[in-house]
């Protein structure tokens, strides 16, 4: 890449033809620009054009000054406190700040380009490496120091020093242990398995309203609800595992993958937590029965036990066994039979284990 040309001279350089390199230098017939007297490589600007440039720069600096004053004035003049006033304040503060900064930037650039001389100075480089004499000297000094310190000769000293350093090096790591409790088996359970305080099975309630759901009310095929466990509506740790999507089907729409014993009157509940990396998988298409996770687009067939039909998730969304209590409200009959959410090392083939325990 050659230097960029901003102002092309109107001279005898032949007109450019597409494909020819930009004529960035003096072309045929043009005399080289002679550096005026002074330091070679420092080419002063024409004083007349420098004076013209000075006026431009002064104007820009004045604009920057006024915009800076405007910024302070805007801070005082425009209060915040509702969204419209915040919008005005942002525009006034940001607009004046932008104007001030850019005027200053342009001004300085014009200053450099049109008032300061042009430079074509040359400086020598030197190899980074030191000469061999210096290297030799450093090497000797280093070895002598090691010898003098006795670190080489006194083996016991050396070994016990290393010994002393080892546990101290580990100490910071040990201190990190209390960052969190050990996982234990908590990843295998959700609050759906715990009965409520009065010993009843936990009800399913609507996310956002906390209303329990009467099975008879959730009666439109193609319906969906985002459901959370009663009593844990605002417990994010519980929700991160226990949130459900509740779907209503016509009975004939179910396929073999769905455990019909765990449904109630065409209502089926799946974990909303994607088995890939744990986003809430909740885009539901009632025509195709697809559940799509918006993060990485794993797609599950809700009519067929939420089996994966596309995308990176490797396992179906776990189904929660549901039923109704004596008042007709939907309840969890038990916890999920497999851990919900993303896979983890200790998980193992929980689906196979669940099948074994059942049979």
């Amino acid at each position: 890449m050659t230097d960029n040309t901003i102002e092309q001279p109107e001279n005898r350089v032949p007109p450019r033809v597409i494909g020819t390199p930009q004529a960035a230098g003096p072309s045929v017939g043009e005399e080289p620009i002679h550096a005026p007297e002074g330091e070679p490589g420092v080419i002063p600007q024409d004083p007349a054009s420098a004076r013209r440039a000075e006026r431009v720069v002064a104007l820009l600096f004045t604009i920057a000054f006024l915009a800076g004053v405007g910024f302070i004035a805007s801070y005082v003049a425009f209060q915040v406190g509702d969204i419209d006033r915040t919008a005005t304040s942002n525009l006034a503060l940001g607009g004046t700040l932008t104007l001030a900064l850019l005027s200053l930037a342009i001004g300085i650039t014009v200053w450099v380009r049109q008032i300061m001389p042009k430079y074509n100075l040359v400086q020598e480089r030197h190899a980074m490496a030191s000469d061999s004499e210096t290297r030799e000297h450093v090497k000797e000094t280093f070895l002598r120091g090691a010898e003098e310190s006795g670190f080489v000769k006194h083996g016991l000293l050396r070994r016990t020093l290393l010994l002393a350093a080892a546990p101290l090096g580990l100490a910071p790591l040990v201190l990190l242990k209390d960052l969190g409790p050990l996982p234990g088996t908590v990843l295998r359970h959700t609050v759906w398995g715990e009965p409520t305080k009065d010993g009843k099975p936990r009800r399913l309630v609507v996310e956002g309203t906390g209303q329990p759901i009467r099975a008879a009310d959730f009666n439109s095929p193609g319906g969906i609800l985002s459901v959370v466990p009663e009593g844990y509506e605002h417990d994010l740790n519980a929700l991160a595992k226990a949130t459900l999507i509740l779907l209503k089907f016509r009975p004939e729409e179910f396929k073999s993958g769905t455990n019909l014993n765990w449904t109630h009157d065409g209502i089926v509940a799946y974990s909303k937590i994607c088995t890939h990396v744990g986003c809430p998988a909740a885009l539901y298409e009632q025509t195709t029965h697809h559940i799509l996770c918006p993060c990485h687009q794993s797609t599950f067939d809700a009519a067929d036990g939420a089996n994966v039909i596309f995308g990176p998730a490797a396992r179906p969304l776990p189904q929660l066994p549901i039923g109704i209590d004596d008042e007709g409200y939907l309840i969890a009959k038990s916890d999920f039979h497999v851990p919900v959410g993303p896979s983890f090392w200790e998980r193992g083939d929980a689906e196979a284990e669940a099948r074994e325990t059942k049979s």
Partner: protein
Amino acid sequence: MIGTGISVNSTTARRRHPLARVAVVALALGLLGGGYALAAPNGSTADAAIASGKADDADQGKSLFVAHCASCHGMNAEGSSKAPTLIGVGAAAVDFQVSSGRMPMTDSGPQALRKPRPEWATEEAISQLAAYVQSLGGGPTIPGAEQVDPAKGDPARGGELFRANCIQCHNFTGSGGALTYGKHAPTLNPATPTEIYEAMITGPQAMPVFNDTTITPEQKRDMIAYITHVRQQVDPGGSGLMRIGPVTEGLVAWIAGIGLLALAAIWITAKRRRVKA
């Protein structure tokens, strides 16, 4: 503090008036049948209304249906290989689909898109068509004006329900999003409050149903209040960049940010050629 500042923008205002008329017609039908309950409208009362007297609308609607819908949905709305049955979808579904221009469907894409209504589809024609389809097998009715009035809803409460039920498909401000096989959840910006309500209770196309017994009409009105409030609210930080999140932000950072700074760098370092006198 919450209710104030909710004004209806010009688009919604223009639409609201004619739709209110439809609602008045529906209300009249309900009153004729006796016992139209505003808070919990249900199919059977409206059916009764149609059955009990105002059959003219339904008759008119039938001829409209035969002319414009029957080629796909069948002579008696029984459905065909091309289109589903309309028995039991209710007046709300008809009003939603026809008033938003989705029906009659002209192109055979993955889903019906919002478009300008055909000329015949006047407010009156839609209400007649709706009355006819309602007479076939009941179904959800068109909500009253009161029921979808954003000014009567609580946007903060509606926002919570909106985030729990809608944004996974329609995006956090209702800008829309992708679904499988070329389908997409449309933007909610052009939808009238009535259409939003109707979409929730009828579940058009791939959209699931949110019936009134699990998400109550008041809660739906709260959601409508949130949607309309947020869509007409200014973007205090400048251009909203389509309100779709980091994708457009990244594009702006590269194109505007790096672009402008590269230009600045070129200008700063450019050699000024001396024009030879």
